[in-house]
């Protein structure tokens, strides 16, 4: 009786949280999935019609969708690799050579706290062909100003650079915290055995850091897939469609064309992609960490 009462109490206690979770998490996902399988207008007085996979088929036949997906993948891979490299190098440097004060640590991670819209506007200003610092420098040297955002190749790398500036501290923070939490014993043993710094990093520290790096990559990849604000502010997806990432594609479908079905279908694709990556990262993290030691 007591045990039964205890279970009921537990259920009563977890019920509000569960309901909240369903409402906040599961319901929007369900709604999005439902919209992707139906034809409805949020403006006209039309009823919702089930259309099966029509929106998905239509998406897969659109070059602009594949282009957006390709750009999102390229953006995600390039920003993750560059930021991971910078973050790991800085973290290792500080870990082995220069332990820094809390103040410097805060300074290093400061860009991470800049709002994406502010960061986007700042970089747009830097690249501004009329008033931006780059333009002023070029004019001072009596050259015609350049505008990376006007070039279909450089505009993409301009948004990558903005993301690297803003987000590398995030990876640094995760990796540095991981480094600080590593047990010193394996490193000390390796030192006694005569391991060089390079060998120590490659064979002891980095393998031990693998779960941390996996988490950092996972979080960064998911963040990159969703990136929208700064790109919208800097290029609006242009010139042409050279920076039209998948998130911009979704917004355009939903709020420019008012086509909720195709927008939801693209969101579902993005969701599946994100979930697959999250699952992969979880698998990587749960694998044995190192053979060393």
């Amino acid at each position, binding site marked *: 009786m007591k045990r039964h009462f205890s279970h009921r109490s537990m259920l009563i206690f977890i019920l509000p949280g569960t309901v909240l979770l369903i409402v906040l998490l599961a319901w929007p996902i369900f709604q999005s999935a439902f919209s992707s399988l139906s034809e409805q207008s*949020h*403006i*006209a*007085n039309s009823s919702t019609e089930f259309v099966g996979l029509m929106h998905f088929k239509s998406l897969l036949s659109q070059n*602009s969708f594949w282009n957006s997906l390709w750009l999102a993948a390229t953006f995600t891979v390039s920003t993750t690799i560059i930021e991971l490299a910078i973050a790991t190098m800085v973290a290792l440097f500080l870990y082995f050579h220069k332990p820094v004060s809390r103040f410097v640590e805060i300074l290093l991670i400061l860009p991470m706290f800049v709002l994406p819209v502010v960061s986007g506007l700042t970089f747009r200003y830097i690249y*501004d*062909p*009329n*008033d931006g610092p780059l*333009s002023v420098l*070029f*004019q001072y040297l*009596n*050259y*015609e*100003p*350049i*505008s990376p*955002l*006007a*070039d*279909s190749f450089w*505009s993409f790398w301009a948004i990558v650079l903005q993301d690297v500036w803003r987000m590398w501290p995030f990876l640094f923070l995760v990796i540095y915290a991981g480094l600080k939490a590593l047990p010193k014993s394996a490193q000390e043993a390796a030192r006694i055995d005569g391991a060089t710094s390079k060998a120590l990093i490659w064979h002891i520290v980095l393998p031990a850091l693998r779960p941390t790096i996996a988490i950092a990559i996972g979080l960064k990849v998911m963040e990159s897939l969703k990136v929208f604000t700064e790109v919208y502010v800097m*290029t*609006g*997806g*242009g*010139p*042409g*469609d*050279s920076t039209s990432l998948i998130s911009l594609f979704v917004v*355009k479908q939903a*709020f*420019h*064309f*008012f086509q909720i079905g195709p927008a939801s279908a693209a969101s579902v694709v993005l969701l599946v992609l994100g979930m697959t990556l999250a699952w992969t990262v979880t698998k990587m993290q749960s694998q044995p960490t190192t053979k060393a030691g």
Partner: protein
Amino acid sequence: MFHETMGVLKLFLLTLALGCTQQPPRTLKVLTFRDRQSNALRQALPQFEAEYSVRVQFDDIPASSVATKMMTDLASGGTYDVYALDEPFIPQFQSKLLPVSAWPELQPNTMSGFEEKALRAAEFEGLSVGLPVNGNVYQYIFRKDLFSNSEEEREFEKKFKRKLAPPQNFSELLETAQHFYRPPRMYGFAPFTKMSEGTTVELLWLLAGFGYTPGDKTIQLSKVIEALNFYEQLLTTAPKSARAWHHTERMSAYAKGRVAQMMTWNSFFFDLEDEYKSLVVGKTGYAQSPGNSSTSLAGSWVASIRKGSPETALASKFIQWWTSPKLTSQLVPKGLSTARRDVLTQPELNGQFPWLNTTHINFERAFLRPRHLDYRKTSDQLSQAFTRWIAGQLNTRQASEALHNALIDMNRLAAGRDNQKRAN
């Protein structure tokens, strides 16, 4: 103690009862875009509120967000009584808006005195759902101080064998642009090249110069190629960085005195004559757009009433007040781009704001964008092909074919709806 407590309780109940009997003031909810005129209108609102003993909730948000906010508002049943919306959105929202013919207390002369193209902005398939609150024409401006400079005149005449004057056609526009091209200090033209509705407007203006008229299903590919070749030449007189210019960049370049001429909307003219925002105050000439036929493009914002609004009569009065000649004349000196012909042609206002009459002339010559339910999508196809060509992602042939197909698609959709309506 008991009596004191009871006294406080009685007072509380009395206050509550009084509060319940008093009706809250009627509120009219308005959603519009933010600019100079919305600020001026906000200041004028107390006049309306006092006259009708109502409160006006006036939400002005960035122009680019109005349609999105309107869509989300309507999706949840609608909370606003009055919406101001840009004309390309009229077909999509029309079913949710009250036709003007059904507006209560509509004064007989309300529809008169407007520019015809601005009035037509509120129409789709012959049904009007609003009155124009902001009238814009895409038109030509130039640096009149440079055009009247004797040395410039001499040099220009020597090179092009004609007088330096605002161009009458596209070849003259190019010649003038080439004449003033002196990088990095001065450029001949400021294009609109950043993908948005603005690039569609720039493209339609360009094509109109080569004979395109909206709805023309027989547009020739060769004309599109010719237009792009011309624009390519025009782009060589603009800064290299101008291949991703939105309004901000191009108006900034002009206001800094680095551009000799351009096409733009009249809503920007007020800022060009503001000494806090412009280095070319008093130096701008406003002229008829170059081209023999319709080469100006009209684009107006329209105030509409939501179907099912509980305040349709009040909303109707509000829009009539907003667009009245009296209030419009008050708002023009504060930055309103009016759609009223009778205000644009007022001699006293023209003495102060020389672009008003030119705007009227350009309105007369203007054309409207094709109108159909999928306009935003076809506009995006045009804009994308045009900007991909500008950015070098497509060559002229590829871009022309893409544009040609998109134009035919756009015209077919516009005509299709008309035909369907005629059949019904």
